């Protein structure tokens, strides 16, 4: 019996199958965290999207809090901002962009009365002076107060009202009154009626750690001195200063100046560590197809009412790039955008000691490649997950449990159930038919019909190979097994004189092209060329065509399949996300073994696309859909008039493989296979069958346990249920069977279970 080695626990290998650079460059493709276009265009970095969301929900208080993060004086700013964000709003591409400034004005007016800062706020030690008045001085004083610097404003006006009027005299009366209240609530010291002369400056300077002056004061006192405009700093005079021709530039410059103050107060070079201070172009992608509300809400009066502002804010489509998450049920399940999930999965591979908490998501991706197609930047989650799996294998950290059943199944396909023969009557054939392990397991009759058809209509002989292409170990990340499978197949092909391979499944075709190489044709290509066999007929109802992941990016195959469907007289129902955008059926990447829950969600999502019966050209897809109770047919079933019927359980799949091999050997090559017959009767209750299928226990495992029991008589009797329980360690697991002995040589299996842990007797 073949066996896969369980992983060790003490080895510490470091063989990276995926480099950090590779991951970094891939993660950088995910633009989920890019800011929306409006936000990137705002010099003050207002979180426009969040503010609009709050306003659209009628929560003006929260909207104002968000707005105040960008500016200390929301009424002043919103009254005069040039709103460069508006031109960058994505809605402009379809109609009228959002009236962001008008909403801001409403937010500033309806967001509630100004609040004083908390009295418990700890203030900074260093002190700052602001000399002068005007917009820049006003905003700078506000920014410094926000940063908790003890700040004193020296101005020539007689009171706070005069100071505000000098800066923002353009405000209407109501707004002015509100903003004055806000100014007065700020934790600022004022010294009014100061004349800013050179002597006054020299006298004031020693009392403060940093001194800032308005543009007017600066040009009057130092007409010749140079100011670094990006820093708002005059190094020669050690003064922070800045200008502002309008509200927006004054507010922006005040922000830069406040950062310079921050750096100077800490004795740091003001030129360093400044971050992104200016507007930039966002790399975000937004799907505009759902943007329908393309006209601005008109204001009945001069300004928006509360309701009008709510409606206008509601037009914001909340730009986000979620293209992959919309289409992929796996990403939806883990609720993380791929840049983050991919990074976490990579980091998981780098853990030497400790929990690998991301093993589950790493093994749940179907490696289908859909995200790479739907992502505007081609993010390739499959690459990250596949290389991470290989990495876990190479460092001996990959648990065997999630994939062992599939790997054993593959070894069964390429062992006991393997068959390679030239067409009867030929010693060497021109072709070889490779139907794929799933087709043999799920639809043996169809495979047989297809093979006989190819034999009868192709010149030069068609050899047959029943086995697995190696996709299973490829998906499991078992690269060494992949290599030995490749060698095994190469060797078997050589024995047959290296005929040209005709693959029955697009995944086999892809896998074999990569492993054994050469020109590999799909059976669909052959049938397209030689024509359909007699009696081939489609369904009389429209069907939804499901494109296989194995044919992603393969326009030729997709086209040929559609042509065959047409020749069969099939009407294809409109199915969204088809062709290259097709989702996975849930079988790919061994998700169905490692994480059946996620696999089911993936299958459901694929089925949601249509109510029609599904037509596929990969047998695994046919099986997944049928398991969910949907009418599901493989193209070859229609072509050969066969019906694989209800999906087989895991034991039946193995049985089907063996039986087909036996039948073909007998019928075509007249070879007899030794019959493995039990010398006792074994029955299963329905419950036992169901438990075995969901717990991945084969009838072969149960038979092995029963054989052992019949030999050694070891079992336990449960007095409560009257059931006998026997067990046997097979490979990496212990199997338990609960049964009744109905007669001397007859048993009924009631339940079965297994565990991987070894349980042994302990002395002492």
């Amino acid at each position, binding site marked *: 019996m073949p066996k896969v080695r*369980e*992983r*060790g*626990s*003490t080895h510490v290998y470091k063989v990276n199958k995926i480099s950090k650079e590779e991951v970094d460059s891939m993660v950088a493709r995910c633009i989920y965290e890019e800011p929306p276009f409006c936000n990137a265009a705002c010099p003050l970095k207002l979180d426009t999207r969040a503010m609009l969301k709050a306003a659209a929900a009628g929560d003006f208080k929260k909207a104002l809090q968000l707005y105040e993060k960008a500016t200390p004086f929301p009424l002043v700013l919103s009254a005069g901002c040039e709103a460069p964000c508006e031109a960058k709003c994505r809605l402009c591409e379809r109609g009228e962009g959002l009236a962001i400034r008008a909403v801001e004005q409403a937010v500033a007016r309806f967001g509630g009365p100004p609040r004083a800062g908390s009295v418990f706020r700890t203030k900074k030690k260093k002190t700052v002076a602001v000399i002068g008045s005007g917009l820049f001085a006003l905003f700078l004083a506000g920014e410094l107060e926000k940063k908790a610097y003890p700040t004193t404003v020296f101005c020539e006006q007689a009171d706070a009202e005069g100071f505000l009027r000098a800066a923002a005299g353009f405000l209407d009366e109501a707004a002015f009154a509100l903003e004055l209240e806000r100014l007065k609530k700020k934790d600022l010291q004022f010294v009014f009626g100061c004349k800013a002369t050179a002597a006054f400056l020299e006298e004031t300077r020693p009392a403060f750690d940093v001194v800032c002056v308005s543009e007017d004061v600066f040009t009057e006192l130092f007409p010749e001195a140079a100011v670094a405009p990006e820093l708002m700093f005059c190094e020669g005079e050690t003064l922070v200063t800045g200008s502002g021709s309008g509200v927006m530039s004054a507010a922006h410059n005040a922000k830069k100046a406040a950062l310079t103050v921050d750096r100077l107060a800490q004795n740091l070079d003001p030129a360093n560590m400044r971050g992104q201070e200016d507007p930039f172009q966002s790399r975000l992608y937004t799907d505009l197809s759902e943007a329908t509300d393309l006209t601005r809400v008109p204001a009945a009066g001069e300004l928006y009412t509360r309701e009008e502002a709510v409606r206008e804010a509601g037009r914001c489509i909340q730009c986000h790039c979620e293209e992959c998450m919309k289409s992929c049920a796996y990403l939806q399940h883990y609720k993380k955008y791929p840049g983050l999930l991919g990074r976490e999965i990579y980091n998981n591979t780098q853990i030497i000691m*400790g*929990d*690998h*908490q991301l*093993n589950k998501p790493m093994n749940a991706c179907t490696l289908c490649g859909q995200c790479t197609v739907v992502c505007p930047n081609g993010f390739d989650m499959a690459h990250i997950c596949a290389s991470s799996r290989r990495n876990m294998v190479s460092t001996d950290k990959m*648990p065997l*449990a999630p994939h062992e059943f599939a790997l054993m199944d593959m070894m069964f396909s390429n062992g006991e159930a393997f068959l390679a023969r030239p067409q009867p009557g030929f010693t060497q054939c021109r072709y070889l038919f490779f139907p794929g392990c799933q087709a043999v397991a799920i639809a043996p009759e169809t495979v047989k019909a297809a093979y006989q058809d190819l034999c009868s209509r192709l010149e030069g002989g068609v050899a047959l190979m029943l086995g697995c292409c190696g996709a299973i170990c490829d998906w499991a990340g078992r690269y060494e097994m992949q290599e030995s499978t490749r060698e095994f197949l190469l060797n078997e092909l050589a024995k047959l004189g290296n005929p040209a391979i005709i693959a029955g499944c697009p995944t086999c075709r892809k896998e074999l092209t990569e492993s054994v190489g050469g020109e590999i044709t799909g059976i669909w290509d052959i049938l397209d060329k030689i024509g359909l066999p007699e009696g081939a007929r489609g369904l009389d109802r429209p069907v939804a065509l499901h494109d296989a992941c194995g044919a992603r990016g393969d326009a030729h195959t997709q086209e040929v399949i559609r042509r065959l469907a047409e020749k069969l007289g099939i009407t294809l129902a409109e199915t969204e996300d088809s062709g290259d955008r097709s989702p996975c059926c849930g079988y790919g990447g061994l998700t169905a073994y490692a994480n059946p829950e996620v696999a089911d969600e993936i299958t459901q999502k694929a089925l949601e696309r249509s109510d029609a019966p599904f037509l596929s050209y990969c047998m695994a897809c046919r099986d997944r859909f049928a398991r969910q109770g949907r009418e599901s047919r493989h193209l070859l079933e229609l072509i050969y008039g066969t019906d694989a019927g209800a999906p087989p359980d895991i034991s039946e799949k193995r049985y089907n493989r063996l039986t087909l091999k036996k039948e073909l050997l007998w019928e075509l090559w007249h070879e007899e296979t030794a019959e493995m017959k039990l010398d006792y009767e074994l029955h299963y209750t329905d419950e036992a069958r169901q438990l075995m299928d969901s717990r991945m226990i084969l009838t072969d495992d149960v038979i092995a346990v029963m054989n052992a029991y019949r030999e*050694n*008589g*070891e*079992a*336990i*009797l*449960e*007095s*409560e249920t009257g059931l*006998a*329980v026997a*067990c046997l360690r097979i490979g990496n697991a*212990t199997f*338990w069977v*609960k049964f009744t002995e109905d007669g001397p040589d007859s048993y009924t299996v009631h*339940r079965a*279970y*297994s*565990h*991987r*842990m*070894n*349980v*042994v*007797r*302990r*002395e*002492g």
Partner: protein
Amino acid sequence: MAIDRTYYSIDPEGKLQCMKCRVPLVKGKAKFLYLGNGFPVELPVCPVCGFVYVPEELALGKVLSVEKALEDK
């Protein structure tokens, strides 16, 4: 004397019998071994032949969760 710390314990309470030896199972010493880790446990054991019984609830409950935790180490 070393303290015998047991990770898990089940008493068969006379409800289980060894079919081979025809005696009731008793609470006995056993060990879980997986991926190089070991834990002492107490399980139903045949006092004569030493057969260790792992009930279904244990296999699908505690044993499975310990397996999973160790697999992801």
